[in-house]
């Protein structure tokens, strides 16, 4: 990893360069990371550090474990590319008049008058001007495309509108690339154009060129990430070693559902960018996928304290709050994002979640719909809307919503699971199995999915108990938190007359309940079975222990336990007096 100081200088100039070219989100990202680097407290006024530090006591607590190895230097033999000279030499090739043209164009660009900006730059030949012209044209085309998409939407869905500038842009940029006068920003635009056209391989190559020659453009990295859908493509990329690559890898691992790898990458990056909100949010995302909700909540609380007007990723926070049923926290969050920017899909999604938690499913559907209107490919909104429809018992609508989610991203195991649930609800367990199989295939370590599938096999219509047992076993093996699987396993084995196995699982379940200090009907059931089982197996001591424990409960079980105890005593007497 490059030193903090180099990172800082690199990012500082990158922010200027990027915002000078109108690449706003990349420059935003770079600036965020710039502020994320830990300041040397000696050099700065205390007010700065206070802003940065926030209240990091909680964070320290969680970070303590990971911090040990994350500061390690990269292994020997990895050579990082030298930082290219930052201040663009091209600035000198500008004379004043050209520069004026650029200034006018940039002002138009900032006012979102893209065509005008491109027109101003029509005869400019400097690289910077060429880039801005291409980029403005591209954005103009995109804007028109969005408008047309709404204007032309036919009865059967969208008509295939395309960005009309793409063809000319592609021609121009490919010519530039061929004669070698293309700069990395134009390469980025070229990559965008190619990606939209669907020639993914070329787009990937071009984007790799772009990030290799100018690594600080995060937008280029993100585009590249969206083109890496398998680990094989990721590994085949020929990327220079640069600290930006670590950000890229971490992000890509996450999208490829390699959460642990991604997490370790982020923790490594945190050594340098210890105050980066971005990294924190990404870590939260990874932990969320690993279902560490407590931790995620802590991270988000701190994030909000540092950055109270943040909306990005807050939908995930709302999911966590939903799962933990924190009514007031969720409503507070919803209120806050609503005031900040109500027309963000995330905001709508959070409000939808809130209504869903309150059980007002119709209202929550309205908000999810709004989120989808803002972004038609907003995956989690489709899935969540499906959940709402399931709650409303409108299964065909639920099926439709889930199916759209699945068609947007076929790896969304939640939507597959939802589809299975919907069909099971309609009394079609065999049909539902197809979907459950898909979902466990994508997320084989999630006990809930296995349990759902097992219950599907267990339904009276299918009654395929052997298969159900297999599924429950898988569930029990992968960290089944609510310990449903053990209980079911025991009961199923009991039903099938496998008393030994049943006893084994009841015992296991019992141990677990004891360890977690849980009580309840399951406990009674387990004790009852074990007492009877031990008695028939003539293990009287054990049986007596179980029976005495049963005596603590009221109800018919107590009486049964008493009679059992009596029976045991008689039999014991028999054994003592008349040994076999």
């Amino acid at each position, binding site marked *: 990893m490059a030193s903090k100081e180099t990172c800082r200088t690199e990012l500082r100039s990158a922010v200027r360069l990027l915002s000078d070219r109108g690449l706003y989100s990349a420059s935003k990202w770079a600036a965020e990371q710039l502020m994320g680097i830990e300041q040397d407290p000696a050099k700065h006024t205390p007010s700065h550090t206070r802003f940065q530090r926030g209240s990091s006591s909680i964070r320290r607590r969680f970070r303590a474990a990971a911090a040990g190895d994350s500061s390690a230097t990269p292994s020997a033999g990895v050579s990082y590319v030298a930082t290219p000279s930052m201040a663009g030499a091209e600035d000198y090739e500008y004379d004043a008049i050209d520069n004026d043209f650029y200034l006018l164009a940039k002002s138009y660009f900032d006012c979102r008058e893209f065509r005008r900006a491109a027109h101003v730059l029509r005869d400019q030949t400097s690289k910077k001007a060429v880039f801005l012209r291409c980029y403005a044209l591209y954005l103009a085309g995109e804007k028109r495309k969005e408008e047309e998409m709404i204007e032309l939407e036919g009865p059967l869905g969208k008509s295939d*509108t395309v960005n*009309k500038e793409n063809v000319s842009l592609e021609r121009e940029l490919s010519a530039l690339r061929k004669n070698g006068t293309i700069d990395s920003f134009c390469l980025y635009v070229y990559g965008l154009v190619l990606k939209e056209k669907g020639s993914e391989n070329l787009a990937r190559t071009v984007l790799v060129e772009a990030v290799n020659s100018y690594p600080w453009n995060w937008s280029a990295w993100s585009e590249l990430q969206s083109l890496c859908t398998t680990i094989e493509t990721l590994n085949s990329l020929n990327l220079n070693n640069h600290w930006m690559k670590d950000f890229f890898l971490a992000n890509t691992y996450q999208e490829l559902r390699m959460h642990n790898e991604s997490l370790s990458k982020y923790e490594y990056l945190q050594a340098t960018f210890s105050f980066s909100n971005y990294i924190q949010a990404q870590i939260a995302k990874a932990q969320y996928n690993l279902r560490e909700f407590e931790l995620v909540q802590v991270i988000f609380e701190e994030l909000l304290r540092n950055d109270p007007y943040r909306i990005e990723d807050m939908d995930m926070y709302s999911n966590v709050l939903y799962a933990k049923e924190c009514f007031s926290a969720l409503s507070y969050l919803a209120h806050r994002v609503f005031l900040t920017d109500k027309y963000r899909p995330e905001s709508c999604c959070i409000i939808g979640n809130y209504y869903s938690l309150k059980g007002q499913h119709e209202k929550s559907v309205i908000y999810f719909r709004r989120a989808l209107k803002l972004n038609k490919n907003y995956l989690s909104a489709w899935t969540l809307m499906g959940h709402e429809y399931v709650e409303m018992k409108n299964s065909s609508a639920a099926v439709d919503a889930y199916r759209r989610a699945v068609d947007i991203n076929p790896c969304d195991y939640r939507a597959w699971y939802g589809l299975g649930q919907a069909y099971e609800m309609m009394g079609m*367990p065999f049909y539902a199995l197809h979907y459950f199989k898909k979902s466990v295939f994508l997320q084989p370590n999630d006990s809930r999915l296995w349990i759902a599938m097992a219950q599907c096999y267990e339904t009276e219509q299918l009654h395929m108990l052997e298969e159900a047992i297999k599924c429950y076993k898988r569930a029990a093996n992968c960290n089944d938190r609510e310990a449903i699987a053990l209980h079911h396993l025991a009961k199923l084995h009991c039903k099938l007359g496998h008393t030994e196995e049943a006893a084994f699982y009841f015992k296991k379940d019992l141990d677990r309940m004891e360890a977690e200090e849980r009580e309840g009907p399951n406990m009674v059931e387990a004790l009852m079975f074990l007492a009877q089982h031990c008695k028939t197996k003539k293990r009287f001591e054990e049986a007596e222990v179980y029976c005495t424990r049963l005596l603590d409960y009221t109800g018919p079980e107590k009486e049964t336990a008493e009679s059992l105890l009596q029976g045991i005593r008689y039999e014991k007497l028999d054994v003592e007096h008349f040994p076999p």
Partner: protein
Amino acid sequence: MAGLLKPPGNFALTPHKVSICILVQVYAPPSELSVPFPFSSVSHHNCLGIFLLSLTKACDSIFEPSLDELIAQLREIGGLLNHWLSDHLTRRLSSLASPDDLFNFFNDLRGILGGSDANVVDDDQIVLDPSSAIGMFVRRCLLAFNVMSFEGVCHLLSNIGTYCKESLSDCPPFELSHLDDSSNDPELEYESMELENFVFEKVSEEFEARKLANERVSFHSHAPGALFELVEDTDFPPSSSVEHIDRPREVSPCAPSTSDTLRGTGPPGGTFLRTNWQVQGYLSEQADAIEKHGSSFPIYAFESILKRLQKSAPELHRVHFLRYLNSLYHDDYPGALENLHRYFDYSAGTEGVEFVPDPSGCSGLGRYEIALLNLGMMHFHLGHPKQSLEVLIEAVRVSQQHSDDTCLAYTLAAICNLLSAIGFSNMTGIIGASYWPVAGIGTSSSIQQQLFVLLRRSLKRAESLKLKRLVASIHLEIAKFDLTHVQRPLLSFGPKASTKLRTCPANICKELWTSYHLISDFTDETSIMTTDGAFCTSWLQNLKKPRGSLVFSQENGIRSDSDIFHFSAQPSSIPGSVLHLLGSSYLVRAAAWETYGSAPLARINALVFATCFSDSSSSADAALAYAKLIQYLAVFKGYKEAFAALKIAEEKFLCVSKSIILLVKLQLLHERALHRGHLKLAQQLCDELGVLASPVTGVDMELKTEASLRHAQTLLAANQYDQAAAVAHSLFCMCYKFNMQVQNATVLLLLAEIHKRSGNAVSGIPYALACLSFCQSFNLDLLKASATLTLAELWLSLGPSHAKKALSLIHGAFPVLLGHGGLELRSRAFITEAKCYLAEPSFSVSEDPEMVLEPLRQASEELQVLEHHELASEAFYLMAIVYDKLGQLNEREDAAASFKKHIIALENPEDKDDPLSNFP
């Protein structure tokens, strides 16, 4: 349904529709005389009318034609006027330069519609009836224009611009543009399915040729065979269809060549979808085509069309169904499964499936039971009987829950189908274990009984729901069931005395007749729309045909005439599904007559099917009919003719693995090898036959039985009696286990034969008698006759004292044997008769030589046709002896020479030319 959808307004104005409107204006100008200005005659005028009507209804493709194509079609109907018409059209189109022009144009258009009060109209004046088809079209256009936003008008205008520009860019010589179109226009390439088919056929021909060349060398060794299979699988799609179809797709988006990219950018003229109705019509036509042609349907071409369709109409979920069908018929299990689920997830079973919509309204909950039904059929089709049954049972349950009687009826029929098609015994486990829809019957009763009850119940249900086609097909199913099952009382208690253990041919006849009544009243169930569309399509295509082949007009003139005649002579066609049902009733008839042993009737029925229904039925059925005909040829006319016919059939049907044609070929080759004494080859062929069957127990039972039957026959021919008997015994056990009684009769006969050949006549007789009683109860007349023959042979081999008995047996069976038996059976009968005479002590040859010689001569002639060396040598041997006794030395020498020839051929099979080399 749940998505962010707008209510479907389903009529969008496109440049093509504007062109039609312009032409309608020409067709019906306001206030003109009866034959308006540019037309020369009334018929000429009407021709344009029909053309316009067809344009609004045709469903030959998903996209509207470009201006070029339209102009080309106009040339066909325009005659002398064609230049005027097309000029007028392009002039009008290019005059539309501003939104206001469009407003004016549609204002004018309103003028050609007549008012609702028809009385005021003069006779001479042409007024478009607003409720006629074209009038409706115009009104819809007007409505669409009126509700259009200003943005919409702008888009329409710019679209018209590109529409014209495209045609003008390569306009001047029309001929040239047409020649070019096929090569550089991706749209056209997609649409021209004929071209695609043509290429496909050509390639498959080539592939057949290669295959034959291959076979000649390496039919016997398996390794090259496998390699060859590989070649078959991988080689020809990339060489033809894939490349052919995908090339334009790859090129047009990638290469920055100007013409292609221009197309890709603006909304190009050719990429406007036709109306929803037309697209649906196109899709259902394609669905029929897939089901008909099965695996020979060009998968890639169609897939790319579907892809484009899906891109331009993502909410048209029918596409997924078509995709499902396409992958199903190409045995792509994951693809089929995925698309089936996708289709039903989106459509909830309420879009487009062939069922009659329930008038009672089936709630907003969707009809997912149809999904189950389809899934069940899919598993059945792909050979997963267990899953299929599970799914279908779930379908029964769900449709009962939702009281969807129609679906229930269809599901029950599907279960019947499944039960009757798949072997039975291994099913009991599943059915016992899970919930079984026929609740009244305990699990103890056999599957046949369950099937029997199920059939009757579904028949009742279908009749009460008035689903005529379903009723008809259930009748067929019952006929099939009755064909091979003995009637037995369902409950095993009660007086058994009245039980009559026979099949009832009369019942079958009755069932077939009831199913036949369908033809008189199918109309109420069909959608006339699609046939309408199909007619318009074929009319438009006929327009094109003479154009494409102007050079060969002399040759093709007759053909296109007949096409037009065809078109006009059929005011309403019989829907495909009805034809299909009728056709399969003929197949069932043929099968029935074959089992009952009437060869001529079976042949006639197969022939009727092959001539009348092979166009409308699936290619698998047609292949079956051809196969049967080929078999008859082989049995009655010898191998030469059969192989010639086989060659024709192979050209007609793509010879995929497991196809019936391949099966017949193997059967014929095996029989011929047996007759000629090429035992090794026979064994090899028999093994190949066995390999074709699926390894799953209970599936492909017929094929398995046949393979082991032939195995036993081969062993018998090699005089390995013990092994042959062992094989036959195990076969008998299997047939017993799977309740295949008819096959059991055949096996019994084979066992009798084995005992006869091993010289153990006494133990053979019980088998023959058992076979006879089987035949009696199943009405298998021909088999009975041949069992009688075997019995006679057995008696005869017990000694000359039984010759009389044998003779009377043969004479009893002669009518059936000679009338319906094949060459082999007849000559065996003749030889046995002669032997009986010779063995009988009271018979003297010298008194009545013709009594013996006549049958022997007959037998020897027929056997020579059949190339059956063993029997032929026997016949000649007997003949020589008789001639010797009569003292006719010359004839004796001739017979002896023939005898020697056949014996040598039999003993040295390798000396003769390789049997496959003279096989086509």
